């Protein structure tokens, strides 16, 4: 072998459950690298001086650093480097869209074979979970500095902000509306893509750093933001996500058997309706299921429906495949499992039976016109193309918008016309003194890692503010 290593362009693929097997279970689809596979993939990294991968990472992980530690077989070091910048690596390694972030800016991307950074990140996080005796809970928190911060919401933005502030010595209390921590990671993203014990392990790590996570606390109802500020909290970080579902607003949409994706996924993932009647929450799926939308949420809902026993599941999307906002990997997984894509198709109305259950949907075809504000070609209805499709269940996955409970009960918070809280992106500051915001509530529905980045930036600014003030 020559001194200079030859470029290895064989990306190590991810072992997965076979489509025919996995479509019948809720176990994780991607199985994770073996040690040998991880070493092989890590050794492909050429350790660039100007590591362009880091430019693509919203939380500035020292990517070549942790990859080097893997290839040197120093796993505790890999964990340390990774966790230095990311307190939820087992989650990010699984659900971040690396193909548009670090893997897109990786030097080897130009050769069509970027390092599989996400898969390696996952490998390191999983290694840590299997070796708690080696790492232990790395709790290097500063001593309590006498100041308290309330964090509202325990999704990725809230958890990250809480962890960062706790490390700096703040007394952090997280207020969560639901009965578990994790936000969308628990109620939205399904078990087969993100096992819930991993979310809980990472949430428990944050919990071990902070003072407390209080569940069943709907802020705006049991206490307002002003109540928090008046009762011993020096600052409030708002991270309640964008949880309110959007509907199609077409006739028949309130028939039974028509779910928002939020309801369908919450029943399935959070309430474990897939284990009904052992668990008390029911869900109805039937034989023919249609899912409206083209994003990750639509993919997740359709793949859940399949696993709950649906005979045939269709994704109905009004644009074409290239405009689908879902991650390519998840779209391909869905197709492999047998989900049928009906593209350039839109619903007109739902038709019910005498019991008020949905029995059919009227659809029509679309075609693509000129690009719209989003840069994607605008879909336009094709006249006289209506047709009826018989269905048992419909799931509407059109996206979500902010829940007004907090804004409507907090004086002095300025909102955008979409209902998101106006927030300075660099600091997370809102128009209200002592109140910061981040994650989907500030940006509208986005990604796990962008929510985490916002949580981090807010923690830095809250610290600066509270120190300056003292």
């Amino acid at each position, binding site marked *: 072998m020559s001194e200079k290593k030859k470029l290895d362009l064989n990306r190590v693929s991810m072992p997965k459950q076979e489509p025919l097997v996995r479509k019948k279970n809720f176990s994780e689809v991607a199985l994770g690298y073996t040690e040998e596979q991880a070493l092989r993939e890590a050794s492909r990294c050429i350790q660039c001086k100007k590591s362009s991968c880091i430019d693509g990472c919203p939380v500035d992980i020292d990517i070549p650093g942790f990859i080097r530690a893997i290839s040197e077989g120093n796993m505790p070091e890999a964990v340390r480097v990774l966790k230095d910048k990311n307190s939820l690596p087992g989650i990010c390694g699984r659900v971040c869209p690396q193909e548009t972030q670090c893997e897109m800016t990786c030097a080897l991307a130009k050769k069509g074979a970027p390092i599989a950074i996400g898969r390696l990140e996952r490998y390191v996080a999983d290694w840590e979970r299997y070796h708690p005796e080696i790492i232990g809970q790395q709790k290097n928190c500063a001593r309590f500095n006498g100041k308290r911060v309330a964090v509202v919401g325990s999704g990725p933005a809230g958890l990250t902000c809480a962890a960062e502030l706790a490390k700096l010595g703040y007394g952090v209390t997280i207020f969560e*509306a*639901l*009965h578990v921590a994790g936000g969308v990671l628990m109620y939205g993203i399904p078990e087969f893509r993100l096992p819930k014990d991993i979310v809980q392990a990472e949430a428990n790590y944050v919990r071990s750093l902070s003072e407390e996570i209080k*569940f*069943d*606390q*709907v802020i705006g*109802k*049991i*206490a307002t933001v002003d109540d928090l500020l008046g009762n011993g909290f020096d600052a409030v970080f708002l991270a309640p996500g964008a*949880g*309110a*579902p959007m*509907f199609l*607003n077409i006739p028949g*949409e*309130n*028939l*039974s*058997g028509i*779910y*928002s994706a*939020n*309801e369908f996924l*919450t*029943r399935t993932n959070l*309430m*474990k309706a897939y284990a*009904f*009647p*052992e*668990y*008390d*929450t*029911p869900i*109805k799926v039937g034989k023919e299921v249609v899912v409206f939308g083209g994003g990750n949420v639509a993919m997740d809902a359709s793949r859940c429906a399949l696993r709950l026993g649906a005979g045939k599941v269709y994704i109905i999307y009004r644009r074409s495949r290239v405009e689908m906002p879902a991650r390519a990997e998840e779209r391909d997984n869905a197709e492999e499992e047998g989900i049928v894509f009906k593209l350039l198709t839109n619903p007109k109305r739902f038709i019910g039976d005498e*019991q*008020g*259950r949905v029995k059919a949907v009227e659809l029509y075809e679309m075609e693509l016109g000129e690009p719209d504000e989003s840069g994607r070609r605008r879909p336009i209805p094709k006249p006289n193309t209506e047709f009826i499709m018989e269905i048992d269940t419909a799931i509407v996955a059109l996206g979500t918008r902010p*829940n*007004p*409970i907090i804004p409507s009960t907090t004086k002095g918070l300025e909102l955008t016309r979409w209902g998101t809280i106006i927030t300075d992106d660099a600091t997370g500051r809102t128009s209200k003194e002592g109140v910061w915001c981040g994650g989907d509530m500030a940006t509208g529905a986005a990604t796990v890692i962008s929510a985490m980045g916002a949580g981090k930036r807010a923690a830095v600014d809250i610290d600066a503010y509270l120190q300056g003030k003292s």
Partner: protein
Amino acid sequence: MYRILDREDLTSEIHLLKIEAPGVARKAQAGQFIIVRIDEKGERIPLTIADWDGKEGSVTIVFMEVGTSTRKLAVLNTGDSIVDFVGPLGRPTEIEQFGTVVCVAGGFAIATIVPIARAMRKAGNRVVSIMGFRTKDLVFWEERLGSVSDELIVTTDDGSYKRKGLVTEPLKELLQETRIGRVIAIGPTVMMKFCSLTTKPFGVKTIVSLNPIMVDGTGMCGCCRVSIGGETKFACVDGPDFDGHEVDWDLLMKRQRTYLDEEKESLELWKKKMAGAIVNE
């Protein structure tokens, strides 16, 4: 965990639990509800706040045994705990001076209408309450509702106690005899529907407390959607109180029946478990 401080059986099927929940007790207002999850495998079900005590830090709920969750609740005793108790949710009932207010209640709602009648009276209204039961054995809280009303009318379907007939009959008479500023009707869906139909020709605004199936109770799932004057609303955040003349009752009743088969299956399993538990003792 939320501890049960007290339990009382109001009838053989209607029970009262007083729960330790200081945060909820501090903020509760008449007409709001809470969501409970009884155990780790439980579903989330909404129940109206029937009473609260800020000093003691307690919230009282009154419920009727219908399916698995309410039966699971019914076997709990003082000192036991439930895993989740979320609230206070929903908008409070609009309390203002309307003149004469008629409060109509049936079934478990006799208990939940008490704080509303109390608040209406405190706001300077003359409160006439009508409570309806199927039969004499099911009558409860006659005195309690009476103590917060200026006038109380009790009906039984079979005439075994006080006035025979449905609540809509005395309601209609009142509407014919006096000027009524507002009607509040809470109880089984059919009862609320017929009260609304009764008041409609008189043009008296009638507030009903809708009870669609819910999951989160915070506006996140859309399971609780109801149609009000042709517009879709989420009962958990936009309600549960709505103008009874605007409600699409047919839709509400159909949506309530979405899981009839599953509810039956779940109840069978629970009954089997309970039978097993008794055998094992």
